């Protein structure tokens, strides 16, 4: 387990100092350092002086604004902290299950099993219950994590119960929404230098686009390329599948940003009858968007390279037809060794409509939802706290994961039913690994 982030835990006070007060007070000091050729001793001294002043001022200042800001910032941090913690809890359950089944973990995910839980065995997925999660969060490092989270949430709830603080918090939030923070005007010389650099890059990119168009026209259909450049969807006929591609950004931007690690086009994989199966994400090393298209057309033409391309591609969403097509075997969804967790998560997060597959694949996410529920229950929080959080955040649900569809309640019912009677999933997950 990652002990590091427990060690680096920042209290709401620390977040408050860091993101609000220090951000404003240190502006002058930071500007000095940025424009200096090298940070010198007096820069550090100025920095330390500001920290000292801010710390002393906040120690004596118990104003509603100070407390309200602390609450607001810690809320945003609490959400990500909660998310990471519940993710880790569900990973422990997964690791325990794999170990019980004798499955060797070959994905990038590490085995997260503390010594106190080494003897625990999970023979069936539905044996992962809230009781098991409660047992897990009572051992280190989750105990300390849960305690910290509880303390933070209780503190927030206490602050939220004060109407005067809530009023200040609402006013502050509205002021942020209505009046964006002013940014200092950059130096005109720096702007001019940046504009010249941008111009050179744009010129090189335009030349690159012309060359790529010529290359494409020599090998492939030029009319199809123009369809793509115009922003219309282009169907690329492959050996086994068709690929509907459409540009996501401007041609210039996609040509300049070559190594973003993200696909420069939106790509939908279709079967030969035209039914959409999945959307995919594929990147080639150091190519612009038109060269990207050139290579996709080249790879799709050959059955062997098409399979290579499909295996390399990440599936980001699927339709129900996906599961009746051999593509799901190519992507190794059935196989724990070849289906990385993020692929499964992606599929769960988007559109699974088949109840059969839902039964098989929903374990992973349900465990996470259950862990979240257990932690929040343990925190024993006031319902008003959640209501206020939701209203302050102007519709942005900081605990959106609890509103998971098909819903946490369904998942809990599903597990309760599985505990009491015949398991719903007739095929154990072990059969798929």
């Amino acid at each position, binding site marked *: 387990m990652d002990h590091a982030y427990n060690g680096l835990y920042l209290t709401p006070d620390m977040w408050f100092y860091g993101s609000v007060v220090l951000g404003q007070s240190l502006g002058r000091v930071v500007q000095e350092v940025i424009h200096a050729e090298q940070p010198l001793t007096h820069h550090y001294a100025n920095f330390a002086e500001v920290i000292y002043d801010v710390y002393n001022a906040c120690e004596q200042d118990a104003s509603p604004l100070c407390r309200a800001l602390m609450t607001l910032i810690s809320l945003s941090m609490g959400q990500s902290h909660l998310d990471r913690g519940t993710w880790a809890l569900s990973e422990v359950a997964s690791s325990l299950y794999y170990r019980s089944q004798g499955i060797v973990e070959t994905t990038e995910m590490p085995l997260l099993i503390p010594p106190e839980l080494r003897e625990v065995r999970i023979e069936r997925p539905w044996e992962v219950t809230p009781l098991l999660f409660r047992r897990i969060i009572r051992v280190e490092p989750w105990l300390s994590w849960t305690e910290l989270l509880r303390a933070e949430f209780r503190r927030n709830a206490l602050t939220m119960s004060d109407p005067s603080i809530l009023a200040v918090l609402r006013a502050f939030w509205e002021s942020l929404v209505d009046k964006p923070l002013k940014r200092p005007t950059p130096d005109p010389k720096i702007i001019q230098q940046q504009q010249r650099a941008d111009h050179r890059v744009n010129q*090189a*990119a335009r*030349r*690159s686009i012309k*060359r*790529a168009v*010529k*290359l494409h026209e*020599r*090998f492939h259909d030029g009319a199809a390329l123009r369809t793509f450049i115009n922003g219309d969807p282009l169907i690329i006929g492959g050996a086994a599948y068709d690929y509907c591609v459409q540009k996501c950004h401007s041609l210039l931007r996609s*040509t*300049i940003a*070559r190594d973003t*690690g*993200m*696909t420069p086009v939106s790509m939908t994989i279709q079967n030969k009858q035209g039914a959409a199966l999945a959307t*995919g*994400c*594929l*990147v*080639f*090393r*150091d*190519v*612009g968007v038109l*060269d990207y298209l*050139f*290579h996709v057309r*080249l*790879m799709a*033409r*050959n059955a*062997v*390279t098409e399979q*290579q*391309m499909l295996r*390399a*591609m*990440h599936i980001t969403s699927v339709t129900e037809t996906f599961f009746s097509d051999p593509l799901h075997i190519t992507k190794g969804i059935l196989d724990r060794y070849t289906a990385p967790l993020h692929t499964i998560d992606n599929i769960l997060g988007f559109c699974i409509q088949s109840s059969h597959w839902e039964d098989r694949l929903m374990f992973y996410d349900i465990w996470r939802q259950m862990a979240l529920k257990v932690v929040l229950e343990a925190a024993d929080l006031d319902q008003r706290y959640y209501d206020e959080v939701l209203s302050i955040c102007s519709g942005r649900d900081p605990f959106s994961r609890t509103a998971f569809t098909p819903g946490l309640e369904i998942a809990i019912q599903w597990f309760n039913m599985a505990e009491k009677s015949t398991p719903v999933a007739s095929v154990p997950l072990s059969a798929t690994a």
Partner: protein
Amino acid sequence: MARRIVLPIGWYGDITAFWDEENDAAALAIIGEMLLQGYIFSILQDGALQQVATPQQIIHRKVIMPTESFNQAVHSGLLTLGGVQAGDQATTGEIARDAATVLTHDTVATPPMTGG
């Protein structure tokens, strides 16, 4: 002249690498290295390539080579850079599975791919 490889590289456009038959051994090593890196070589139909630019024109583009050994081979003269090609070109639909096949065919190289 022996065979050629068309290399669409970065935003420098495509270049074509040539080599003489006596440099086959050097080319074989470079191609083997590229195959290990994940490059895929699609075989072109015979007689499709026609050179219309001189190597000097290409070198002035400051082309970045796919591998360091490729770069060294160009500078030592084992590989020659040809220019932009003219006329329609077509692949046979086959790929070269080993370096020896690349040596005996005109090919177009696709860089390594992965999921994003």
